[in-house]
């Protein structure tokens, strides 16, 4: 088949062309034949312009699906009158597309005709125009939303630059050092006294530090009686 590939406006245009060229009845398209022709065209196109070919792919799969459904219909041999022809939707679209193609020819004629006479650009009436520009007509909700977006963006720019307040990181090892220096100075302290701040990271780090130090035998944890005061004592 040597059809100029780039002449088609899309898959529907191509399909319509193939149908017309083979003089098929649009209301009774031979699916097998048309699918074969369409695919052979598609393969040819793939060699030349893969990107363009991709536009034609969805309809190819649609054609194959319709073909398959028609075969199934025949096998089952159900009362044909009640079955919806699988081609129906495609035919409707093709006819519609064909109509618009025809209409665009009429439009083309009208375009040609209208090109034969002219109007002129409006005379500038600036001497009578008021300074105040006001708002032009044709404003839509989108314009309003756009204006608001721009306003918010400007507001954003006016805001002082963000400064990050960094929190001092409390690590288990730093707490260990601190606790051991406290114990060195005081010998022993109450458990609570080691918790000077009541922030979560501080408490967690301190608690872990005490446990680790106990494991390392660098401190002892004592409790005289149940529910009594817990005493932390340095080992040295």
């Amino acid at each position: 088949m040597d059809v100029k590939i780039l002449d088609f406006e899309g898959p529907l245009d191509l399909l319509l062309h193939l149908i017309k060229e083979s003089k098929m009845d649009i209301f009774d398209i031979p699916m097998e034949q048309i699918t074969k022709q369409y695919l052979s065209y598609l393969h040819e196109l793939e060699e030349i312009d893969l990107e363009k070919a991709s536009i034609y792919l969805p309809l190819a799969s649609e054609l194959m699906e319709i073909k398959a459904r028609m075969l199934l219909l025949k096998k089952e041999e159900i009362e044909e009158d009640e079955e919806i022809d699988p081609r129906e939707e495609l035919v409707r679209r093709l006819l519609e597309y064909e109509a618009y193609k025809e209409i665009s020819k009429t439009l083309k004629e009208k375009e040609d005709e209208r090109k034969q006479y002219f109007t002129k650009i409006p005379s500038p009436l600036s001497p009578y125009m008021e300074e105040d520009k006001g708002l032009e007509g044709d404003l839509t909700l989108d314009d309003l939303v756009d204006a608001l977006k721009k306003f918010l963006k400007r507001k954003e720019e006016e805001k002082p630059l963000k400064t990050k307040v960094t929190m001092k990181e409390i690590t288990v090892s730093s707490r260990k050092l601190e606790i051991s220096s406290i114990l060195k100075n005081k010998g022993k302290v109450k458990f609570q006294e080691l918790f000077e701040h009541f922030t979560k990271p501080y408490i967690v780090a301190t608690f872990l530090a005490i446990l680790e130090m106990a494991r390392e035998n660098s401190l002892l944890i004592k409790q005289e009686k149940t529910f009594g005061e817990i005493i932390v004592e340095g080992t040295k």
Partner: protein
Amino acid sequence: MEAVLEGLLFVVGEDGLTLSQIEEILEVDEEKAKEILSNLKTSYEEKNRGIRIDFLGNRFKLTTKKEHQKYYQKLVENKENNMLSQAALETLAIIAYNQPITRLAIDNFRGVSSAQMVRKLVAKGFIKEVGRSDLPGRPILYETTSEFLDYFGLPTIDELPDMRNFLEQNQEDDDIDLYNSKYKEDKITQEN
């Protein structure tokens, strides 16, 4: 009054004037406005002048006459014609008969993506956004403009040819068959 209207139409040029604008500016009622318009129109026609009054895109405009087209052509040196592509015409036809319409619906009619074409047509002023559909994602709806009508020399959107004339009808064959069989019947009775 006709002279004033003539001047007005000259000044507005391709923007044209609607009937209600004419009423407003001349401070007359609709009937009077129509009368002034038709007087001016006739006087243009009678004297066989180079200008006429046309009704395009719902507006009255002064235009040149197409009989004189060949003379205007001589003014232009490069005769490159600046026509719309087949794809553009197709897309416009679909929009014109289905407006307001979403881009996706246009794509479905054409079987190809129309994103670029729609953008181009908006830029040319042939179509415009007129709001959003209630469909999911609230897609933009497009409509043809008065410039579209003028470009194709159409007075109003109703002047577009009837879509039905362009649709191949399946029933048509049935109708003919019916007619034929009846015809045969008649023939048979005649023969008898």
